[in-house]
């Protein structure tokens, strides 16, 4: 089980999935290539934040993103936020794959095939992410996705630092934006604020106790 609110993750995935499927629809040349991958499920686990996402190529025209999947995966990639960030910003992803802590299980062929199909499409990652997760988080994740699928095109020097800092510490600071409207906004941001205050209290308490211990 993840410690994340499944509703928040699902909302983000729903947004990305929509962007991805729109891009597929607008890119007829990708349909044959994707059809060749139909039935392929890929898993990505980001260990630092305890998040796993599965991509299921349903057909030549449709993909599905999930946080839970019981189908066999063709390939499964596991790494820390830093690993993926350096992979994303690297000019030589193959070298990063070999040298970083990223673990790859299964068939790297399908992974690379998919990366190539997607990199040729023009996907608006940003709009759905910003809409569900808010400006800062949405923008950062969109940047990662963009660069992951454009290996070598541009190196984002500060990305690695930004993402790991952001995901680990700032995630809770951004209340979700517009699209999910009144109810979601109110409830979710409040719960995050409560979490944040609780976190701060716990940190303070730990500090106080540490000081006491030292004294």
């Amino acid at each position, binding site marked *: 089980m993840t410690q994340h*609110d*499944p509703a928040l993750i699902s*909302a983000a995935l729903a947004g990305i999935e929509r962007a991805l499927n729109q891009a597929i629809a607008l890119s007829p040349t990708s349909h044959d290539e994707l059809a060749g991958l139909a039935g392929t499920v890929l898993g990505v686990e980001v260990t630092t934040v305890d998040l796993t996402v599965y991509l299921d190529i349903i057909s030549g025209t449709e993909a599905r993103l*999930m946080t*839970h999947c019981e189908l066999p995966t063709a390939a499964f990639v596991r790494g820390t936020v830093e690993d993926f960030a350096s992979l994303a910003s690297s000019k030589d992803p193959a070298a990063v794959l070999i040298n970083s802590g990223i673990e790859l299980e299964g068939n790297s062929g399908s992974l690379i095939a998919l990366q190539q199909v997607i990199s040729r499409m023009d996907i608006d990652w940003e709009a759905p992410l910003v809409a569900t997760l808010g400006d800062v988080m949405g923008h950062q994740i969109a940047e990662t996705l963009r660069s992951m699928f454009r290996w070598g095109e541009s190196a984002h020097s500060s990305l690695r630092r930004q993402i790991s800092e952001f995901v680990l510490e700032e995630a809770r600071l951004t209340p979700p934006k517009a699209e*999910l409207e009144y*109810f979601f906004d109110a*409830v979710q941001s409040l*719960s995050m604020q409560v979490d944040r205050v609780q976190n701060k209290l716990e940190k303070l308490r730990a500090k106080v106790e540490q000081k006491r211990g030292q004294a």
Partner: protein
Amino acid sequence: MTDDTTSTPHEEENTTDFGFSRVNRGDKAGMVRGVFDSVAGRYDLMNDLMSGGIHRIWKRFTIELSAVRTGQTVLDIAGGTGDLAAKFSRLVGPEGQVILADINAAMLTVGRDRLIDKGATGNVQVVQADAQALPFDDNSIDCITIAFGLRNVTDKAMALRSMLRVLRPGGRLLVLEFSTPTSALLGKLYDQYSFQILPAMGRLIAQDAESYRYLAESIRQHPDQETLLEMMEVAGFANCRYHNMTGGVVALHQGFKA
């Protein structure tokens, strides 16, 4: 162990909860029917407005956890207007089978129309049925979902046992239901929302504040996360667990037939 342990405190008596009121056990089903007869036509619109569309996200996660695949048989009980059934229809494919079941004919009529609109017809069966006495064979279903339905059922323990009976060994039940927010602050905000804003929206849009007041009250009467988990275990489900969503406003419980 007797059934009484699985019931909410008053259920062993001759009365049961209807929102915050007490009514005769035999009357609850009819009164619940009245509520859903009255909201059926505008149910989908209200659902989107009241939850800001987020019920779609809760349902999306429910579908993920169902892990339903081609060829399977899925029952969506208390399925109302067929949101989940339409999604399952695509997932099980032409070899599979989806049963949209509800006690309320008006909700099913809306549901049937929606399914036709969505092109989900070939593999969906619409059945009027009471969750407490499911009219299906033992061991015949791979996955059962009940979304925002269990709290309306008079005898929840009986419904859980009935679901266990029709599930295949290895099959799973998913209960998506309003639950208890995990923080007091969130709970307060949520109370205000459901007792003030929600009935007001019901009055404005559906001209029916009473039905929406019932909905809000019935949410508060529903067992909290741990209580429902225990009820599922007592009914005989294995590997029971739950996921809180949106700070516990909603919980998704999962259990398997061993």
